[in-house]
């Protein structure tokens, strides 16, 4: 299980980093989503992997699985979910207003421009 978990986190992180380095916002957002999945699994694993263990000590339980990383993962999931929604909306707005999906900001021409200062 350790090998499966570790390789899954590794592959997702690698794929996420590759996608984040793309030129267009769509793959970049997918890459960010992959990275957040990877980090969620990573956080989950920081409490050590345990199967069929109760999260809190109670009568009859020999050992328990650490409940704190699960709480942290819950927070991280909520935040990353909200952030992904925000970045999708902003990327859409940017696409609709500038008519391209590039991540890079084109250099400003030095002639004075109209509109927003």
């Amino acid at each position, binding site marked *: 299980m350790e090998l499966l978990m570790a390789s899954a986190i590794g592959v997702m992180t690698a794929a996420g980093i590759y996608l984040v380095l793309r030129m267009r916002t769509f793959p970049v957002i997918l890459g960010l989503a992959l990275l957040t999945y990877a980090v969620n699994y990573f956080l989950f694993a*920081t409490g050590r992997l345990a199967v069929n263990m109760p999260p809190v000590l109670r009568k009859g339980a020999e050992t328990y699985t650490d409940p704190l990383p699960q709480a942290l993962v819950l927070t991280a999931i909520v935040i990353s979910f909200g*952030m992904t929604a925000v970045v999708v909306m*902003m990327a859409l707005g940017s696409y609709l207003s500038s008519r391209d999906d*590039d991540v890079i900001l084109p250099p400003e021409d030095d002639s004075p421009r109209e509109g*927003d*200062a």
Partner: protein
Amino acid sequence: MNHWIIVPVVMPAILAAVMTLAMRYHIGLQRVFSLAGSVALLAVALGLLAHAGSGAIEVYELGNWPAPFGIVLVLDRLSAVMVALTAALALVVLLYAIGSGWDARGRNFHALWQFQLMGICGAFLTGDAFNLFVFFEVLLIASYGLMIHAGGARRLKAGVQYVIYNLLGSTLFLFALGTIYAVTGTLNMADLALRAAEIPVGDSALLRVGAMLLFLVFALKAALLPLHFWLPNTYAEAPAPVAALFAIMTKVGAYAILRFYTLIFGPDLDATAALIDTILLYGALATLAVGMIGILGARRLGRLAAFAAIGSMGTLLIAIAGFTEGSSTAALYYAIHSTLAGALLFLVVDLVRERRGALAGALVPGPRLAQHGMVTALWFGAAIATAGMPPLSGFIGKLLVLDATRDMGAAWLIWGTILVTSLVAILGLAQAGSVVFWKTVAPADTADTDAPPAAQPALPLVACFVLLGGIVALSVLAGPVVRYLEATAAQLHAPAGYIAAVLGQG
């Protein structure tokens, strides 16, 4: 327990929620409540500052859970100084935003503003590493909204870049926290300090990885070279009042470095000793150089101000890299100064842009501005403060930094860089100022015949003069301020008091 500690976090949160729900369409009501909230925040922050001045470290246990298990807020001198600085800056910049009408160019400005204040104050007050992550996210998500306030294609595109950079930073933050939790089994900062010290040096590889990852996250926030690439576009494209408030956001990164690498991974901890000092120092020197050369090379006022912000972070991080009491004092003084000066520069740049119509921030000669003399005087003041010339506090700040780094190994390099880059900054600022303010051409000679509107609101000018007044006050009252900051640095470099205050109770 002193319940005032949580007020800087809870009050903006409630205010923002009420504003979004009840007065979404009433900009007048929003302004009244936002201003009242900022005044109240400043009053509370000053009260906390006076309270922390006694040297006591106050702990606020959320839900009354004792320290290593529950989340705590901690008020020490450093937190109090940073919260007071945030509150003061926010009030003045809010005045500017209202006076210039920036807040009415899109909805929800004031609600996002209050959420941003909540996040910043929370980040300064929290005593829990994961809670720090949460407050970082609060301030970031509010800043995403503020960054694209009033819209525009370029601003949206720069906003997307900014969000992507910071989401990567957040992911890295979580990896760092996960690693540190896996090694130590705690995320309470005081408890972390104890546990990190118990780990044998030979067994500390993971701890060092965690410390390094955490440093990368804070360096990203503090715009340390080579992690500064998000800053110029973001600050140059953000609405001016927002960019001025962002002047405190880079300081959140600097604060976190100062806090974590004195309290948890302090100079006395063998496992992580000298792990980041060298990287931080040389990174900061490069940051300073790039920032000041950027001032000289900028072709637009917005980018000029953004590079000035990078340069000031360089000087600040050089001082932090010393990790001694003297250098931390210098760093804190320079942090206060550079926050005020950076904000002032962004606001003055906006004054110019608003008055030049289509020319905006381009560094080409234009017509005389409305209230030309006043704006020029403000630019002069902001430039002196930014470059660190006497008589304003930038000079005192740089002097403190030079004095504190005198005994460091690379002193000649630090002195040389700071002094040469100051000269470069003076050149850049003088060049920009003379093009914009001296080489005025008659409006009829330009392609654009629209004369700038004669009447410009007075409140933005007042706000700028208040900021300049703050810088002057910081220079005049340098003695008492430095004494307070010396006590702050002493408290910071004796982490036993902090740990005892947090873990000793209950």
